[in-house]
């Protein structure tokens, strides 16, 4: 009475193979999730030091116009690309250009970013970056109150 089922062993083999595949997938996914939970630094900070190299820059992305790096708005000067590569991957360059600090305070700020914001070790680049910042964006004297500047004069209609 029993029907002949010649495909049976093959099917079983296929199931076994699929089961193995699924288990491997499950393992990979759980490994990825636990990496996320326990060692996010490994996943999100694989490049510990981004090295400087002006030759790395690719065409339009690093175009300079009137002494300004077009993409970021940073002043073109010694150390520009090290700053672009290390300082604009988490926040935009406007956070840099808005802020004017001394060497000591930039170093403190870098330390703060490393301790709390996942900034990587900068190695010898730290001096290049801080030199660039204090040379091109030095603190300005504002005193207790600045004069009103850049007033946009217009006729007041009634």
């Amino acid at each position, binding site marked *: 009475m029993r029907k002949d089922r010649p495909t049976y062993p093959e099917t079983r083999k296929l199931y076994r193979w699929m089961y193995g595949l699924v288990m491997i997938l499950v393992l990979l996914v759980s490994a990825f999730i636990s990496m*996320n*939970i326990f060692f*996010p*630094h490994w996943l*999100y900070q694989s490049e510990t030091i981004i090295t400087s190299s002006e030759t790395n820059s690719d065409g339009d992305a690093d175009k300079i116009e009137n002494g300004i790096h077009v993409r970021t708005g940073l002043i073109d000067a010694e150390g520009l690309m090290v700053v672009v590569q290390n300082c604009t991957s*988490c*926040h*935009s360059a*406007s*956070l840099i250009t*808005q*802020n*004017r*600090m*001394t060497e000591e*305070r930039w170093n403190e*700020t870098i330390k703060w970013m490393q301790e709390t*914001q*996942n900034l990587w070790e900068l190695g010898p680049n730290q001096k290049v970056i801080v030199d660039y910042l204090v040379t091109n964006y030095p*603190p*300005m*004297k*504002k*005193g*207790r*109150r*600045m004069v*009103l500047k850049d*007033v*946009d*004069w*217009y*006729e*007041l209609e*009634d």
Partner: protein
Amino acid sequence: MALLIGTDIVFGSNMPEDYVPLALHENDPFTMFKKNKDMVLLNDRPWNMEAQAHLLDDDITPNSCMFIRNNGHVPEKINPYTWKLTIDGESVKHKKTYSLADLKSKFKQHTYQLTLECGGNGRSEFDPPAKGNQWTIGAVHCAQWTGVRLKDVLEDAGIKSDAVYIGYHAVDEHLSYDPNKEPISRGCPMSKALMDETLLAFRMNGKDIPLVHGYPLRLVAGGWPASVSGKWVNRISIRNKVHDGTKMKGSAYRIPCKPVAPGTKVKDEDMCIIESMPVKSLITYPRSGAMFNLSKALTIRGHAWAGELEVSSVEYSIDFGSTWKSCTLKKPVNRLAWQRFSATIRFSQTGYYEIWAKATDSQGKSQPMLLPGWNPKGYLNNACHRIAVKVK
């Protein structure tokens, strides 16, 4: 809309009114967040944008002129139907979870107009300069918020007698995308949390809260640094100690407990958390730079606010503070809303003038004409606002 993007929008029917998916724009924040073109972009990662004085002339600030302050990435995938708010912490009697529908149906709804000012508004004027976004004068707004009282929700979950503080948690992501870091998680003492005007809001100016301002649920604590008013809130912890979330410690939203000389280094333990914002005012009409004839009687107007307090008077000066004249000042529409002031000025000779405004709070404290006390992070600059005019 699906045709434009080329794919179906999952939960498209849940999108807030007026919301345009981020994918439709090439990072133009003015279109993306529906902002006035005269708003000033301070930072694009994270998004930070401020108003100019003349943009804040409305009694109720419209979304188009509201400043944006973000610490992390604006969340993009929000489903209001599955949104949950959890009340937990050491000092909650029963940890509880509410859906948006629960909040709306279980508790009475209230609407208040509330002044929210960034603690760092005016930071750009400090010398030596302070680190952070260099806000000038436009990080303040007074919109109308509708929601339920935080007090009602906390009491529903039950507050233990040892509760001292609440801390919020939200779904925005850290700038580094590290899932273990919160961009910001601040809070306030129980006394502020239990005030009538402290809301868990789901509507702003009669519509769903715009995404960038905290859709679908925002904690709104008027009169305190706007960072207390957490956006995209999904958890509030009732703490038995001062909340220790991100930006509650160190120098964040803190000033020296005792005054210091400009540039002084201050130890973390000598810094105190900012609570109520100080008295301040803004001339919103005319826009700075107005030229008009000597025969004209110039009308000026603006808003004044004083954190937890009410503003009792506003004066103006056209001679750099030698003489002051009083402005007409309205009462606030509710506690913690800004107040309208106005005055009519006649000039006796032609020339360049600055019009300065100075508000005084109900405890007699006035705005300084010079910068107030220096502090390492450049908070609480409530120096008088002024505009330039020419009389012909």
